[in-house]
């Protein structure tokens, strides 16, 4: 928040007394803020998943969009959206996101918890796994939109002239000695040379995971060439753990409060 008092001309008001908060006052203020946020203590995120990762950057874009909306109302927001589209490509590019954002009370990004890729299954079918922890969603929040976001770079030279079929599956059941049972969520045909963010709607799956966390066995993606040959996600140009931080896959969910919370007056 601002420590300065501005008059109508955005100049600091000369009569406003500036003083530093005392330590205990600062602590009280911090407690108040955490209490409003509903947090038990100051968050301590893992340093390894730093602020320059794809998800935080995406969330920062959303935050800036909302902030400019608060400043400039609707006109300014649309302009900013258009400028983001032209300068940053598909990272935050669609009016659909705009609608999600306006409707949402909370947006949350989730990092992929699968540390090591098991790209080749025993049955010689390439696949890539994703797991997201949706178990700690505050009560009363309903998912209104949810996306898996993958960054695709230009494919490996071997398949450069191909079109690729990328399929996203929900893992329904896992088996120790054979392939997991999968449910196809979406298939999309892509140019091998295509570059940019790919967004897959996983709303139904996310809702299931929020309501019944034990069904959350993750997602799998598979890529095939036009001739039906299974290729690895790396060959297809999909960025994984060894790729750039700002291109790491992540999931984002938009929430809306479905219950009325009445805060007691203090």
């Amino acid at each position: 928040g601002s420590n300065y008092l501005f008059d109508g001309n955005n100049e600091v008001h000369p009569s406003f007394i500036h003083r530093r908060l005392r330590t205990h006052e600062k602590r009280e203020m911090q407690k108040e803020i955490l209490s409003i946020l509903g947090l038990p203590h100051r968050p301590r995120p893992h340093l390894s998943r730093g602020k320059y990762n794809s998800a935080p950057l995406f969330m920062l874009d959303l935050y800036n969009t909302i902030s400019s909306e608060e400043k400039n109302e609707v006109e300014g927001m649309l302009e900013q959206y258009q400028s983001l589209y032209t300068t940053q490509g598909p990272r935050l590019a669609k009016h659909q996101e705009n609608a999600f954002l306006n409707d949402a009370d909370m947006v949350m990004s989730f990092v992929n918890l699968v540390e090591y890729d098991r790209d080749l299954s025993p049955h010689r079918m390439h696949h890539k796994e994703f797991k997201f922890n949706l178990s700690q969603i505050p009560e009363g929040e309903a998912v209104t939109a949810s996306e898996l976001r993958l960054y695709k770079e230009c494919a490996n030279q071997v398949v450069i002239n191909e079109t690729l079929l990328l399929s996203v599956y929900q893992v329904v059941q896992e088996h120790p000695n054979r392939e997991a049972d999968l449910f196809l969520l979406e298939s999309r045909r892509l140019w091998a040379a295509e570059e940019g963010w790919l967004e897959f709607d996983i709303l139904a799956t996310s809702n299931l995971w929020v309501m019944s966390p034990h069904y959350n066995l993750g997602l799998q993606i598979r890529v095939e060439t036009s001739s039906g040959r299974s290729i690895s996600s790396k060959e297809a140009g999909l960025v994984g753990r060894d790729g750039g931080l700002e291109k790491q896959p992540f999931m984002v969910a938009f929430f809306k409060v479905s219950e009325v919370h009445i805060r007691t007056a203090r």
Partner: protein
Amino acid sequence: STNKRNKNRNRPTQPQEGGSRGPKPAEHTADHYDACCDWIIAPEGYAANYCGGECVFPLNAHMNATNHAIVQTLVHLMNPENVPKPCCAATKLHAISVLYFDDNSKVILKKYKNMVVRACGCH
């Protein structure tokens, strides 16, 4: 604490622009004011402000229209002859957004509705 107050508490500390609806500072007395044309009295150290119906307060966390109204209510109760009842209230409230990491490195963007007073007006 009223004894310690600045004698100029009922005067604006900044020039008011285009206040066609409101009285000039010299005209302001206890028995001469219109609805929503009153000085909003601020505590010591804070600038007194003038409400012209859709007044634009210099707002920050502590100094918003609601706080002014509360302060003026208290001063009015102590000195009802000289200080009028407040007649302003927040009419336009905006949300703020907060972006933060949680312990699991999830990034959360949360909107809090009706947190910032953008404008105030008459009851």
